[in-house]
């Protein structure tokens, strides 16, 4: 397919274009010309407690299509806060507010209704949280909520989603058992299957392996590497080795500020910022 937008440089100062682009049409980054921009965060501040606490300060950041971006930094640095801004979950927190912009496919995220946005921007949490229902119903829940009733179509979505997360062979003979009866690692993959059943563009992951054993962690990490072929992934992790292993880009946050955004290999080998160097070499935590 001829991509008319290839090499079209994005004007970062342009006003918001309210036209939503297809994935092929996404603009290319100025700084990383081979990357297409899925999300763009512009001069973004986020506040808790009626603006008494500034959690994110003047964040400017691009998230690239079909890449894994890791958010790292000490506890309380704002990385999970920013993650939750992408699907507007932070707005559920009382007395929180924001200013600045987050563009999703060149369109301000507040121009979407939350259901529409969250069907395209899925979230996987730290603790696996299958719904109290069967494996089949966990995966088909989203499409059903979107109004899909065709059983054959639902079967296909469940099958493909479970296959994509490498769970199908493990549960194909017991799709009717409760999702909660699976092991922790299987539950987390079920949650990822539930997420991709909605055919999202982006998967947000908030420390998805911190509650899992090393073998389950390795399976999720391998899965993330595979999933980026189809989806854009943002992962918050405290595990720097994990960020180094699975991400393409790394954003390092401290005290609500984005200290450094860089290609992961460069970030962990030759960080540009002294604070990044000190953090990854354990000179402070």
């Amino acid at each position, binding site marked *: 397919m001829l991509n008319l937008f290839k090499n079209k440089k994005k004007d970062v100062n342009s006003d918001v274009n309210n036209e939503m682009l297809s994935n092929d049409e996404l603009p290319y980054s100025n700084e990383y010309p081979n990357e297409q921009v899925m999300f763009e965060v512009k001069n973004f501040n986020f506040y808790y407690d009626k603006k008494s606490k500034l959690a994110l300060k003047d964040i400017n950041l691009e998230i690239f299509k079909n890449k894994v971006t890791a958010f790292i930094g000490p506890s309380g640095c704002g990385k999970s806060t920013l993650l939750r801004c992408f699907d507007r979950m932070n707005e559920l927190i009382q007395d929180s507010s924001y200013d600045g912009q987050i563009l999703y496919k060149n369109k301000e995220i507040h121009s979407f209704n939350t259901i529409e946005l969250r069907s395209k921007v899925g979230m996987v949490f730290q603790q696996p949280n299958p719904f109290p229902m069967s494996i089949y119903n966990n995966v088909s829940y989203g499409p059903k909520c979107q109004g899909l009733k065709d059983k054959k179509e639902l079967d296909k979505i469940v099958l493909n989603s479970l296959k994509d997360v490498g769970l199908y062979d493990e549960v194909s003979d017991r799709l009717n058992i409760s999702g909660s009866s699976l092991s922790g690692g299987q539950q987390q993959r079920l949650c990822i299957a539930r997420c991709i059943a909605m055919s999202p563009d982006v998967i947000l992951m908030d420390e998805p392996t911190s509650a899992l054993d090393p073998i389950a962690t390795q399976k999720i990490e391998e899965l993330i590497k595979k999933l980026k072929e189809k989806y854009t992934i943002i992962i918050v992790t405290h595990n*720097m080795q994990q960020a180094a292993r699975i991400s393409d880009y790394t954003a390092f946050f401290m005290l609500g500020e984005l200290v450094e955004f860089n290609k992961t290999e460069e970030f*962990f*080998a*030759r960080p540009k910022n002294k604070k990044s160097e000190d953090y990854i*070499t354990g000179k402070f935590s």
Partner: protein
Amino acid sequence: MDIAKTELELVEMAKFVKESLHFAFSYYFDKNLNKENIIDDAKVNAYERQIEEECLLSILKERPFATDLRKLTGYFKVVEDLERLGDHAEDIAWCTSSLAKFKENIRIPKLDFMINECLKMVDDSIDALIKGDVALANRVIANDDLIDTTYLDILNLLPELKKDKNLDDEFVIFYTLLNKYVERIADHASNVAEWAIYIKSGFYKDRNII
């Protein structure tokens, strides 16, 4: 992470190797020195094993990044060259002892020049390693071409010398070996300088490794 301890041991090893080479060439220039006091190759080997082990354990336990990773991987590699420099100090001493058995006694000014240049390269490469001085390391590397040319000149000169001065075959062979060892020492000094650059910048032979 105990990189500081490993770093100190590397500095000790580098200084010990440097002193060994200076002793070895002093022995060549002044055969009255006691060669038994010159070289303790076992000590150099022990340094190498110790530093390699500490680097591997730190990588295993700490999973280092950035400067720490460059230091540990760089130290792991540079000890090989330092150990070879230690070996060559022993080789120089052995060649000198062997030459001393002959009645012939010649001086080859080009070889003396090459030895002095080579010792300077060793000193500078070790300084560059210890201080993280990239400019100095680059000067060491640039000097290696001069050593290579001089080595070839001497190699071509030896048959003529043998003929002119009617030198013993074995005597000439020892000089050939000596010439080769000096050239190899300069090569290893260049390698040390290349690792010094890598440890400082992540570049190895103009290629960005990490």
